[in-house]
């Protein structure tokens, strides 16, 4: 596609509900990142994929967060048993091999009520 696409744009979840956030990176981009951005703050790293391999998941805040990229393209970030502190914008970014910059999607705003 022309850019990184994320869906849904907005998600309201009741506390305790499971959610799945989708990221469709730019075609051919090897690297894929997930970031969490709390209101008024900078993005915080969650996890990184190179193709289908999850090479770094050090930023995932708890075992309720899980990410996958089974075929090396589309990625899903899953949050189980959502809590209010999970409310944030979740940004996805991708980059190609040898490219120093990352291209970001518009994010999914998750609100847990």
């Amino acid at each position, binding site marked *: 596609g022309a850019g990184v696409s994320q869906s849904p744009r907005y998600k309201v979840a009741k506390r305790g509900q499971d959610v799945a956030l989708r990221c469709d990176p730019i075609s051919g981009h090897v690297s894929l990142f997930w*970031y969490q951005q709390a209101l008024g*703050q*900078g993005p915080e790293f969650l996890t990184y994929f190179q193709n289908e391999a999850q090479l770094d998941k050090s930023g995932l805040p708890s075992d309720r967060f899980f990410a996958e990229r089974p075929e090396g393209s589309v990625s899903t970030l899953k949050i189980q048993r959502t809590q209010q502190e999970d409310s944030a914008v979740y940004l996805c*970014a991708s980059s190609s091999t040898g490219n*120093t*910059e990352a*291209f970001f999607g518009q994010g999914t705003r998750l609100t847990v009520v």
Partner: protein
Amino acid sequence: AQTVTQSQPEMSVQEAETVTLSCTYDTSESDYYLFWYKQPPSRQMILVIRQEAYKQQNATENRFSVNFQKAAKSFSLKISDSQLGDAAMYFCAYRSYYGQNFVFGPGTRLSVLP
């Protein structure tokens, strides 16, 4: 671990004037990349400008330029001839030469006054 600091939570500038946004970072590495990203209300992060640490020459992209001081670990962004469309959150970011992850600062909200 690397850290990025932006000491100006908010800045404002008159249309057509020049403004400088500050960024400092902490790293023990010698090779890395620095970026300024713009985030408008649409939330999409847009790359403004990029600097390779091994290059002494400051990067320039049209009205945007940087002042990169490697020894001082400083990376400021200058916006000349400010336009209303420049109003946004601006994030300074660091990426290790051999790493993948980006480390972002807390951001500066820029307002452009007509």
